[in-house]
Every structure is written in structure tokens, then in C-alpha cells.
């Protein structure tokens, strides 16, 4: 097939559609001007194919190309980096479509498209994207096949069969490479892949409205698989940042200007209950802390504990983290450092007298610290407090206004007010943020904790028990800790609704959601998170521990060999084993001739082949003739007897062995 031949119109259109489908997901990442330009180019291309628009001239095309290059460089300040590179690639491909005319152009377009298909994974590695890219790539492969074998016999469906077959043959190779290829630690190519996209999650600051905003997001924060008995939902407090400092409105981890905390001495945890062991898969949230069930006692070496008993990683989390931790639900903490005392009793400047008075009254009425805390909880319970996602805005003194005027708030209001009250009563207290609860995926054995379950509660220092958790929100809305906030069903006036069993449609949707979550969890665990650690773990399970790089390399080669063998088995080559012995010998003869440029065609009989040889290489016809003659006798002639046949076969073999054609001049 001549590369310079023109591409049929049908193929042009199909190719353009394939490339457009492949570029489509990138449109969202491109600046709007480029995206619009790209769409215009595509429309032009389709217009040309449908003979509605004139094809661009060479000079016009050059001009557009130059212009768009300059635009991309100008917009991104260069061509390096993910966004600029992908924009340029997408744009160039759209332009290539416009000048696509010959078969060669078709090849080039498809090969470039394969680059583009890989580039999608720089933006997202989620299953839908993978499936989409695979589907479009398969379509392009079919077109490639149509270019290579312009055979009308098999339409798109026949092409698909072949592609499926080829992909199946390649599968063992891919599997071996995936499993055995040495894995590098660290994120993919050390690129800051998620650099531009905002990640939702808990902050190390809390002010009214922060968590309630978060609670409307259905995004997964992490998934937990319990390896020991599953605690009750109201016990599931996932510990995040501990906030000490308040200015009345905003809570922060540390007072401004504090030395980078190394935590003083670590708060010692004395376990009083059964340990709970679990595996947690944390979505990357670009912050250092990781979550653990209140209160962790054992964890991975990768993480450290802070003085408050929280776990933190050494650097900001850009990869999905998977770790095992052990926690106890009943515990005591020992020792209150001077710093803790100082920070735990800090009050905002200008705290209103109403708040102070209330706290002092409780203080004087109560016999112990715990009684004060109980009094505060009772206050929340008895006064008309409302748990709502859309509380009225608070003014200069939020705690005061909330406690005495508005009385509507979300967990951050309650925990903030409660902690402030405790401090005003002279009891060390702090705010703890994190997540509360978790929904069990009924189709798998793990819990999903979503951003919607973000929560804030308080911890109060009690002399004999250490830091004790108090959840004022639970006092106001006990169902909060038993059910999850239903992010999809916030009431009109902002009243919070909880996840309860809904009608059958809702249940079906939930089931679907759980199924999907289970699939993507396994995808995360087995494909995306397959790094050096999981590789080592897998090999160990196969009994191949303590493999060094060389060993891994050898294993890889062996695996590749096996995979190639499998591919060969799958290819069905064996099935075409020659039924006729003379064909095997004659095939060698054909191959020898093919090497000197005379190729036999599959549909060509031996005599026709011989005539063609005589024309192409008259010098060979003398040695070719007896071979063809013998072959014809063996293959098409009336067999005389077995002895004779064997003799002929031998003679044919000898003749073919001796046949050594030289390349023509």
C-alpha cells in the first residue's frame, strides 16, 4: 500500500471523530480561548470532510500553526510543564487533522493520538477516565488496522475482533510488566500532578462556616477496613488537627508566633479498652496530618505522633496513603504540660461578660470540673439550640451571639462555644477536628468516611482522667453521631437532614453508589497504589522475598518470556500447523525468495508464482523450475505410492536446501 495514496473520505471522518473524542476531556483543562479555537478547528475539519468548507491552503495553515504556538507559549510562559505541553499537543493534533490527506498523514495522526491518550493520566487516573481513554484508543486501533489492511471484508466489527485478539495477546505482557517492573517510590515522575486543582478537606483552622461548607461535599475522605470488631458508629471519632488558639472567631492549632511545635513531651496514652485495628486508605489532601480513630496507640513508622496524640506525615500528602493503625476507644492520658495548661486556658481578648458570667456561675455551682462540663452540655440540651447548616451570620463576638442570641449553629459553633465556656470556667479545653462516623459499604467490608462527615468536638482536661472528649453537638442533635449528614438533602432553611433509609429509588441509588465505591476502592488499592511497598509485599506472598534489583530484573525477563509464550499460544499460530509436509518445505523456498524480493501472494498458485519469478528474475528460473515441478507433483498430482512420495519429499528438501538465490543487482 502506497503511503501517498489519498485517505478515503469515510476514514478521514472516522479519524477526525476519534481524535476529537480523545481531545474532548482536555477541553476542560484548557483556557477558554484555546478551547474555543480548538472547537472551531474541529468544525473546520468536519466541514472540509463533508465538502461544506474549503480546505485550508498551505500558507494559511502555517500561519494558524505559528499563531497558535505563539499563543500557547504566551499563555503558559513556555512549552514546558504538563498544561502547556498537553495544550500544545492537543492543538497540533487538531491542526494535523486539517492537513490530513494521505494515508501517511493518517498513520501520523493515529500515532500522535496515542501520545495524547497517555496525557489524560497526567490529569486523572480515575476509572471513568481510564475506561474512556481505553475505548477511544481501541477505536483508533481499529482505524489503524483499517489503514494497514484496507479490506472491505471486515467492517468496524471485524476490526474490533482483531483488536480484541491483539489486546488479549498483549495482556500477559502488560500484567508481567505491571507486577514486576521495578517501582519507584514517590509520586509519578515527581510531578506535582494535582497542583492546580483545589482539594477539599479539613483545615488546621476553624471558623464558623468552614466545616458546614465541607459537610455538603460527598467526596470520600478516607476508607477504613476494620480488622478487629467494628465499633458502634457513635464511637467513630476520627482524630484530626487539634486547635488550641482562639481569637473569638477563628481557632488555630497554635498561637501566632509560637515556636514550631515539636509537641513538648508526647501525651502518654493509657489504654483502658480493647484495641481496635484497622486499615485506612486516605485520599491525598495536601496536608501533613493523617487520621486515626480516637486514640491511636500504634501506627506505621512513616508517621509521627504529636503531643496531642495526632499522627502526622513528614511531608504534605500527595499520594493516597494506606496504613494500618491500632487505637483504643477507652483511654486515659497522663500529664498536662505547662504549655498545655497555658494554651488550654487561653481566652480571646474581649470575651463578653455574659459568657464569663455564665461560666463562673457554673463553676461556683459545680463540685468538680466534670460537673461544669455536664452543666454546659445540659445547657445546650435544654436551651432552644438548633443544629443547622445555615446559621445566621455572627457579628463581632461570635461565641456570645451564638450562645445567647442566635442559638443556631453547626458543630464548629458548638465546639467553639463549649471550649470557650470551659476555659472561661478555668478548665483547660481544646477543640479537636476530624470526622465522625462512617457509612458501611454493604457490598464490601469497609467504611466510607466522606467530607460530609467532618466534625469538630471538644476535649476537656480532667484531673484524674486526662483529656476527655465532649461532643456538644451530640447534646443538641444526638442523631448526628448515629447517622451521617445527608449532603444531598439539606432542607430549604438549612436544617440538617440525616441519612436514613429512603424510598426504593434512593436505596437503589445508594446501592449503586456503594458498588461504584467498592470498585474504585479496589482500583485505588490494586492499581494506582501499587508502589514499591505493595510490590514487595506481593512478591513476599509469592515466596520471593529478599529480591534485589538484579533478581527482580531476572524475574522480569522470565516473566516476559512466559508472557510472550502465552501470547504466542493465544495467537493461534499453532492451529495453522501445516497439514501437508511438502508445504513446510515449499514455505522455506518461498521465504528464501521473499528475502531477495520475490514475494508469493497467498492466493497465488505455484505455477502462477513460477511465471512471476521467471519475469522478475529470469536468472533464477532454471533452479526454480524443478522445485515447483516437484512441489506441484506432490501437492496436486495423483499419489503413486508412499515410497515414491517420500522420495519426492526428500528430493524437494534437498533442492530447496540448495536453493540460494542472490539478491538481484
Amino acid at each position, binding site marked *: 500500500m502506497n503511503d501517498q495514496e489519498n485517505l*478515503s473520505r*469515510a476514514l478521514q471522518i472516522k479519524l477526525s471523530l476519534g481524535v476529537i473524542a480523545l481531545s474532548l476531556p482536555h477541553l476542560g483543562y484548557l483556557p477558554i480561548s484555546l478551547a474555543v479555537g480548538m472547537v472551531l478547528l474541529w468544525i473546520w475539519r468536519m466541514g472540509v470532510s463533508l465538502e461544506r468548507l474549503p480546505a485550508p491552503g498551505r500558507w494559511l495553515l502555517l500561519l494558524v500553526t505559528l499563531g497558535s504556538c505563539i499563543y500557547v507559549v504566551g499563555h503558559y510562559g513556555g512549552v514546558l510543564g504538563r498544561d502547556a505541553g498537553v495544550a500544545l499537543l492537543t492543538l497540533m493534533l487538531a491542526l494535523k487533522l486539517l492537513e490530513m490527506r494521505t494515508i501517511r498523514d493518517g498513520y501520523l495522526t493515529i500515532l500522535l493520538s496515542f501520545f495524547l491518550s497517555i496525557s489524560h493520566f497526567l490529569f486523572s487516573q480515575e476509572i471513568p477516565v481510564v475506561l474512556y481513554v481505553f475505548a477511544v484508543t481501541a477505536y483508533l486501533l481499529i482505524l489503524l488496522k483499517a489503514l494497514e489492511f*484496507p479490506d*472491505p*471484508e*471486515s*467492517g468496524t466489527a*471485524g476490526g474490533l475482533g482483531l483488536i480484541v485478539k491483539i489486546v488479549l495477546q498483549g495482556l500477559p505482557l502488560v500484567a508481567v510488566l505491571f507486577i514486576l517492573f521495578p517501582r519507584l517510590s514517590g509520586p509519578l515522575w515527581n510531578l506535582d500532578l494535582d497542583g492546580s486543582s483545589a482539594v477539599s478537606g479539613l483545615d488546621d483552622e476553624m471558623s464558623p462556616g468552614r466545616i458546614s461548607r465541607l459537610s455538603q461535599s460527598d467526596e470520600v475522605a478516607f476508607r477504613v477496613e476494620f480488622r478487629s470488631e467494628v465499633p458502634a458508629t457513635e464511637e467513630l471519632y476520627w482524630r484530626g488537627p487539634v486547635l488550641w488558639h482562639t481569637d473569638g472567631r477563628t481557632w488555630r492549632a497554635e498561637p501566632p508566633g509560637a515556636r514550631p511545635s515539636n509537641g513538648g513531651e508526647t501525651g502518654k496514652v493509657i489504654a483502658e479498652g480493647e484495641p481496635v485495628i484497622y486499615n485506612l486508605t486516605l485520599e491525598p489532601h495536601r496536608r501533613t496530618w493523617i487520621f486515626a480513630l480516637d486514640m491511636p496507640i500504634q501506627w506505621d513508622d512513616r508517621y509521627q505522633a504529636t503531643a496531642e496524640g495526632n499522627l502526622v506525615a513528614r511531608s504534605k500528602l500527595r499520594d493516597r496513603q494506606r496504613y494500618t493503625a491500632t487505637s483504643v476507644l477507652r483511654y486515659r492520658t497522663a500529664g498536662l504540660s505547662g504549655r498545655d495548661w497555658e494554651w488550654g486556658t487561653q481566652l480571646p481578648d474581649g470575651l463578653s461578660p455574659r459568657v464569663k458570667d455564665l461560666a463562673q456561675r457554673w463553676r461556683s455551682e459545680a463540685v468538680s470540673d466534670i460537673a461544669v462540663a455536664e452543666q454546659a452540655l445540659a445547657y445546650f440540651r435544654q436551651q432552644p439550640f438548633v443544629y443547622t447548616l445555615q446559621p445566621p451570620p455572627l457579628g463581632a463576638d461570635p461565641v456570645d451571639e451564638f450562645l445567647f442570641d442566635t442559638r443556631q449553629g453547626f458543630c464548629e459553633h458548638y465546639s467553639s462555644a463549649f471550649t470557650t465556656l470551659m476555659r472561661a470556667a478555668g478548665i483547660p479545653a481544646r477543640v479537636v477536628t476530624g470526622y465522625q462516623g462512617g457509612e458501611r459499604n454493604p457490598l464490601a467490608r469497609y467504611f466510607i468516611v466522606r467530607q460530609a462527615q467532618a466534625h469538630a468536638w471538644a476535649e476537656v482536661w480532667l484531673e484524674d482522667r486526662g483529656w476527655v472528649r465532649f461532643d456538644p453537638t451530640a447534646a443538641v442533635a444526638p442523631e448526628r453521631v448515629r447517622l451521617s449528614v445527608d449532603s444531598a438533602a439539606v432542607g430549604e432553611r438549612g436544617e440538617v437532614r440525616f441519612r436514613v433509609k429512603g424510598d426504593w429509588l434512593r436505596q437503589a441509588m445508594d446501592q449503586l453508589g456503594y458498588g461504584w465505591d467498592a470498585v474504585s476502592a479496589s482500583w485505588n488499592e490494586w492499581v494506582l497504589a501499587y508502589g514499591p511497598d505493595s510490590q514487595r509485599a506481593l512478591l513476599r506472598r509469592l515466596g520471593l522475598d529478599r529480591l534485589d534489583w538484579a533478581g527482580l530484573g531476572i524475574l522480569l525477563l522470565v516473566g516476559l518470556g512466559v508472557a510472550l509464550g502465552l501470547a504466542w499460544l493465544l495467537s493461534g499460530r499453532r492451529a495453522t500447523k501445516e*497439514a*501437508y509436509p511438502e*508445504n513446510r518445505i515449499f514455505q522455506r523456498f518461498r521465504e528464501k525468495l521473499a528475502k531477495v524480493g520475490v514475494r508469493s501472494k*497467498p*492466493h*497465488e*498458485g*505455484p*505455477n*502462477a508464482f513460477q511465471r512471476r519469478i521467471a519475469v522478475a528474475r529470469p536468472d533464477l528460473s532454471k533452479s526454480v523450475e524443478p522445485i515447483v515441478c516437484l512441489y*506441484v507433483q506432490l*501437492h*496436486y*498430482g*495423483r*499419489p503413486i505410492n508412499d515410497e515414491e512420495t517420500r522420495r519426492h519429499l526428500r528430493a524437494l528438501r534437498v533442492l530447496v536446501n540448495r536453493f540460494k538465490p542472490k539478491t538481484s543487482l
Partner: protein
Amino acid sequence: MANENLLRAETKPGLDALGAADIGQSVTQLVDRAGEIILGKEHSVRLALACLIARGHLLIEDQPGVGKTTLAHLLARLLGLKYQRIQFTSDLLPADIIGVSIYDRDTGGFRFHPGPIFAQLILADEINRATPKTQSALLEAMEEEQVTVDGNSHSLDVPFFVVATQNPLQQIGTFPLPESQLDRFLMRLSLGYPDWRAERELLQGRDRRDMLRELDPAWDTHWLTTIQAKAREVYCSQPLVEYVQRILDFSRRSALFELGLSPRAGLGLLAAARAWAVMQGRNQVMPEDVQAVGPHVVGHRLRFSGGVDGLEGRSTGTYLFEAVEVP
């Protein structure tokens, strides 16, 4: 006439002694003599002869005036066959072909008056002009090699060979043969215009009809039947039968064709290939023989299904034989 043939047979070498090479030579001579009258159509003449040797019937589909009649008449003359031409018209009745029984006053019974079909080579001119009823009368006769009138069967002459012509254009008022009927014809040929040199010679030369009239037979009936018998003995090896089977299989599985080839087509393909082989002076069939006759054997039995690109100007026959691998 039959006796005469038997007498002559003794002068010819016996069937067993007859070498394939002799047949090849004889065919070449015949074709050469035909070439004096039909110019530049050697291949078509050979194909028509192969069809005859394979004991099949021939359909010629072409425009008027390219020599269809001449070819049929010429074959009849050269082979020494009794020739009859039937011009098919819309009012032609089966009896006009087969014959009628007429009351004979002398014997007091019905006597059969044989129609023009009682000949050895029949030219059914413009077969698609007749009504289906008449067409099927002819086709039945072709198939059975006998006709039945008033309950009496009358055997047709042997060899019996029908050359039907069909005009592909001007289909108004015609009854095109349906596929099932086309299947009765072993081969379909189209002659096409002569090339420049041949046409010059034709225009300058003598009247072809005169030349035909003066032409002596090259073969006789016995020689023809001998060759026909010889052709049936030509060896088809396993790989060759496999090849033919692959062709049939491909035509049935391929989405390109509306309907696959019938087993009868397969038998026809082998018979025609055998005839072709014997005409080349060979005792065995080669794939090349199948390919030489193949497009003409399958051409009228296969039709491309619609909606396939890239086949413009290709016949089903040539496509099929380029697509199937020789085992």
C-alpha cells in the same frame, strides 16, 4: 449419425491410450481455427469450450452485436454439433421449444413433432425476453436432459449444450432470470468489445457468416465425449479440494456477499477446473485452473451485498479469488 461417429472412433486412439498432451494439442488447434473467425477472443473461446467439456451450459451476457451468436454458431460448427437457434420473445411458448404432439390421421394416434430443442447445441437468444414459464421449460430440459410431452419422455441429444444470451441493458419488458435459474448455467461470460487490431481486421475482412458456412468441423461428437470423459478423470488432490472448499466457505461467511455459493456451484467449479486442466493437457487440477474458470463460474451466483466501500468496478469473482488463500 451416431453410427458414423462410432466408426470414426476406431481411427482415433483409445481412451486409455489418449494422452493429456494430445488433448491439449487438439484444443490448441481448435482454438486457433476459431481465432480465424472470432478475432481476439481466444480466452472467451477457451472458456466456452471448457464449459462445454465440463458438460455445463453457458450464459453470455453482453450487448448486441459483439459476437454472441457467432461464438455459439462457431462452436457448433467446429465441434460438429447439430445447431439450433431459438429466438426468445415474449410470446414464445414452451411448446415452441420442446415440440408438440399432433394427431396423425394415417396412424390414428398422436405423433410427437420435436421442437428446436432436439439439437446438440442450442442458442437461446435473449432468454430474458421470454416469460418465466417458457424459460423454465428450457431450464428444465437443460437439467434433465430430456423432455416430457403428454406423459412420454423424449431424451435429448448427447452432447446437449445450451448457450443462452442475455442483454444486460434494455430491461424493459424482460424477465431477468432469478438467481436460482442462473445457478443452472455453469458459466457466465461476457465478450466485450474487440481490441483495436482485432476490430480493424474484422472490418476489413470477409463476411463472418460466409466463413462460418465454409468451416469444416475440427472435432466430432465422439472426440468431444471422449474429452469430456477424460476431463472427469482429471485428478483433484486433497489440497485442491480443500481450496475449493475454502472458496465456498469464504463466500458463505463473508458479509460482503448476499448469499454464499451452493454445493452445486462447488461441483461446477471443480468440473470447470477439470475441463480447464485437461484443455491445458494436464492430468491434475491446479489452483490456477480453478482461478482461470472461477470468476466465470461464481460471477453470476454471487452478488455483493450493499453498503460496502471500495469494491467499485470489481466483480465478485475476482474479489473472491484474491481473498482466499491457496492451501
